[in-house]
């Protein structure tokens, strides 16, 4: 049954092209340690934040490479292919409004982090509220929300490998070897180069992605025609399923207006609460770099919107989504579409773009999660006198642990588990916004109230997501026929649910945030009335406005300054 053993399936040209780009990127990853070379890599300032010296362009590539992940490239069009606009296209308004939002608050966070040497968002919460338990809550939320996200990057790579004829059935070791090797190499250069590695690789990744998208869109415009593509999508999404409901949503009706807008708003607010997004922002050189990026990052949103439409192109082209294991998997829609419409060598370029697109965010996510651990768990609770060198060493090791944990997760468990947990991760991470973003403006909210609101919202969001269930149906290709079979029910089937006490569907994270706000505000009134200790604030109002040192770094060597 093995594709390799049978001598079928492995697409040699595609694989060679992907391998070529992988080797180039690996070399870049190791050489990155020399880029804007610091005197020592032995601190989190250097290893974890690249010396806080990235300029506008580097930050743009780094953030773009960080936020628009391989999973995004695979999952958003897959959602469009399977169920249409409400599960997929909301990503467009989501990534439009995220940037005006960060334009407003991110410079404040950058300034206070710079002034006090904060490396993680939980560091800020610790300093602002004088509560190491609130900081721990923020840090642990960040870590558990990030882990499944890293696992999903592997799911993205798997989709590409599967399309190239690698993987599928057969010996598990042979099947998963490419994935294990790719991750081992990634782990090695992240360990040695820190944040500089993904920052450098992001240039290659994004350039490839842009080329692929432009070619794909031109192909669709010329060969298919946009009208035909949308008509095919409309027809498919209106087709009733076995249960009698439409397959999906082509244009939202008034029943899902709130679902669509709360998905967009909730996701946009959550985006920059993710530790990896925060890390890339804190690594920038100045407030101005952040604001400039807020106006140029939408280029990626345009790309994402066009990429989403490839899901519709796959509908038009009647792309098969059956994997090497003969099961239907919507995640294969875009890789299979590329395989179908592009010559082998260019399909290889596209697959390289997706695969490298997994490595950049996986590296940054593992660095960010590792920093949270070493700063807010290790230094705070295990070894309070840890030196910067020790902290950097702990982070490096944890970044390895996190990556291999993700690898085991994907290899050992059903891919659906990673997807469910990532859905939950979005619900969870949004609940840290009150402590972080409101904290940038006012200390009125009481630290204990924040902790209580966070707890209630985490429980509500988790339970509500669990309660969303559908029949667990898999479709297998048997002798050329699609044969569905159902085994019990599947939880975490949707990220939308009825808003409490109503029948209006909204994003679960948004409902949880409203509950969070209500609990936090009410308890703040109570705690203030009884004069509960508010903790010590180590920040000053002017810390939130300070900018880069007055002497700008000379051109060419910018960012080379070393900090001790």
């Amino acid at each position: 049954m093995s594709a390799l053993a049978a001598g079928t399936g492995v697409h040699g040209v595609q694989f060679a092209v992907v391998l070529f780009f992988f080797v180039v990127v690996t070399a870049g990853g190791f050489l990155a340690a020399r880029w804007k070379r610091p005197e020592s890599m032995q601190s989190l300032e250097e290893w974890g934040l690249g010396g806080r010296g990235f300029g506008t362009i580097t930050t743009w590539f780094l953030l773009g490479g960080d936020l628009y992940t391989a999973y995004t490239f695979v999952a958003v069009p897959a959602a469009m292919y399977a169920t249409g606009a409400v599960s997929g296209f909301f990503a467009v308004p989501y990534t439009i409004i995220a940037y005006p939002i960060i334009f407003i608050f991110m410079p404040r966070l950058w300034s206070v982090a710079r002034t006090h040497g904060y490396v993680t968002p939980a560091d800020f919460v610790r300093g602002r509220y004088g509560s190491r338990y609130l900081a721990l809550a923020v840090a642990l939320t960040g870590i558990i929300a990030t882990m499944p996200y890293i696992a999903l990057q592997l799911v993205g790579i798997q989709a590409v490998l599967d399309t190239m004829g690698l993987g599928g059935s057969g010996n598990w070791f042979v099947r998963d070897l490419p994935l294990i090797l790719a991750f081992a190499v990634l782990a090695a250069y992240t360990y040695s180069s820190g944040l500089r590695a993904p920052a450098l690789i992001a240039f290659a990744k994004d350039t490839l992605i842009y080329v692929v998208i432009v070619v794909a869109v031109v192909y669709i415009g010329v060969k298919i025609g946009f009208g035909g593509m949308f008509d095919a999508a409309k027809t498919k999404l209106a087709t009733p399923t076995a249960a009698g409901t439409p397959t999906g949503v082509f244009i939202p009706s008034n029943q899902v207006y709130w679902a669509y807008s709360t998905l967009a708003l909730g996701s946009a607010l959550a985006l920059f609460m993710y530790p990896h997004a925060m890390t890339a922002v804190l690594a920038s050189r100045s407030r101005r770099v952040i604001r400039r990026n807020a106006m140029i990052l939408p280029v990626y949103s345009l790309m994402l919107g066009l990429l989403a439409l490839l899901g519709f192109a796959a509908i038009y082209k009647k792309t098969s989504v059956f994997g090497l294991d003969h099961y239907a998997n919507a995640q294969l829609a875009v890789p299979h579409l590329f395989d179908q419409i592009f010559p082998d060598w260019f399909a290889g370029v596209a697959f390289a773009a997706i695969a490298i697109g997994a490595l950049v965010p996986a590296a940054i996510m593992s660095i960010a999660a590792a920093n949270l651990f070493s700063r807010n768990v290790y230094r705070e609770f295990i070894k309070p006198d840890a030196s910067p060198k020790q902290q950097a060493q702990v982070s490096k090791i944890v970044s390895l642990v996190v990556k291999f944990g993700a690898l085991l997760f994907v290899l050992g468990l059903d891919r659906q588990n990673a997807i469910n947990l990532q859905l939950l991760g979005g619900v969870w991470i949004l609940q840290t916004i009150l402590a972080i973003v409101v904290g940038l403006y006012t200390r009125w909210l009481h630290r204990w109230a924040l902790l209580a609101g966070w707890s209630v919202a985490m429980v509500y969001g988790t339970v509500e997501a669990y309660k969303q269930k559908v029949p667990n149906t898999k479709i297998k290709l048997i002798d050329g026929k699609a044969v569905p079979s159902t085994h019990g029910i599947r939880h975490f089937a949707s990220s939308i649910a009825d808003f409490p006490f109503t029948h209006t569907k909204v994003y679960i994270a948004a409902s949880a945030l409203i509950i969070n706000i209500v609990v936090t505000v009410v308890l703040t009134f109570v705690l203030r009335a009884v004069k509960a200790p508010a903790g010590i604030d180590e920040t000053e109002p002017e810390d939130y406005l300070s900018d880069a040192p007055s002497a700008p770094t000379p051109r060419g060597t910018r960012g080379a300054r070393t900090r001790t």
Partner: protein
Amino acid sequence: MPDEPQRGPIPLANKVIAGVLLAVAIIAPLLVPTYARRGPELWGFPFFYWYQLMWVFLAALFTYGAYLLIEKGRR
């Protein structure tokens, strides 16, 4: 363009106008009922799809306006 130290406070009017620009860029794409329809189409794109893609550009433009008001306003 090196990053120069920022001087002086930003005039209140600049802050207010920048805030309005950003608020529009955040709120408009969330008003789903204003664009959840099929027509008028543009190059085969239903209104729902091209209108949202258009807001990618508009939001970037509004954010640029806010950038100018905040960054240049203090000179």
